[in-house]
């Protein structure tokens, strides 16, 4: 699963998505965390020890994800921002579906849910992904009903 969540690794991931999708590996793709050993350690401490955690900067991830390091794992690839997940796509990391969780933009124009508020730029980015054939689904936790963003995007101006 590829997910965008401003909060990166937190309760909803650990208690919701990990068991629902039987995830064995969390891949955090974020420049700030990749350069901050403390934050990386905190994430690793919070995750059960039988789950793999790897942290990459965006550029390192797009260069190395094809290496096979994560072959055979049921992984969740976590981005903090929509612009990073789009950058990854443009750089060659192609995915069929992206899950949008907690995203809170200032100057939000599109409130898909209390947890997902998008500004003009993010709406544009998601539209670009949709144009590439990516399914964009807004869903905070597994028990929420997923919302296909294309339907909302079509209704916006």
């Amino acid at each position, binding site marked *: 699963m590829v997910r965008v969540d*401003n909060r990166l*690794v937190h309760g909803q991931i650990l208690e919701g998505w990990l068991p629902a999708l039987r995830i064995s590996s969390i891949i955090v793709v974020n420049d700030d965390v990749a350069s901050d050993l403390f934050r990386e350690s905190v994430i690793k401490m919070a995750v059960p020890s039988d789950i793999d955690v790897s942290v990459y900067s965006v550029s390192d991830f797009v260069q190395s994800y094809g290496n096979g390091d994560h072959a055979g794992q049921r992984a969740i690839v976590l981005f903090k921002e929509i612009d990073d997940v789009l950058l990854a796509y443009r750089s060659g990391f192609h995915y069929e579906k992206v899950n949008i969780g907690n995203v*809170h933009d*200032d100057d939000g124009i599109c409130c898909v849910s*209390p*947890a997902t508020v998008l500004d003009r730029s993010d709406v544009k980015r998601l539209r670009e992904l949709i144009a590439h054939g990516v399914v964009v689904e807004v869903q905070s936790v597994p028990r929420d009903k997923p919302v296909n963003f294309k339907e909302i995007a079509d209704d916006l101006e």
Partner: protein
Amino acid sequence: MIGVLVITHGNLARELINVAQFIKGDISDVTPISVDATKSVESVKKEMIAAIKKADNGKGVMILTDLFGGTPSNISLSFLKKNKVEVVTGVNLPMLLKMCELRGKNSLAECAEKIKEYGKKNIYLASEVLARKAGT
């Protein structure tokens, strides 16, 4: 006196403080911060910066959070600073009450160690306690 912040998901912090006040009488300078789905990480950080500043009387600030790995705790950890700001996770009522008791007479580091132990110690398995009593 050490400043105290309680930051949790939803209104847990507010309610813990309300109950502590009910039990102990007036508790001054214990500030709740609530994290819910509608708040952005940035807005919570701003709230915390302001609250830490307000709570700091030169004796340090203790931040109590509900769940290690949860957003309240993750954000709090970014403020960690030796002898200035400490974070203890898994806040429960005994821990909060003990913190209110100790905050005027202990250093930040001493409080942290004591309330961590106290919070843990006050988790009892009732049938185990009874069995021990019956055994003696």
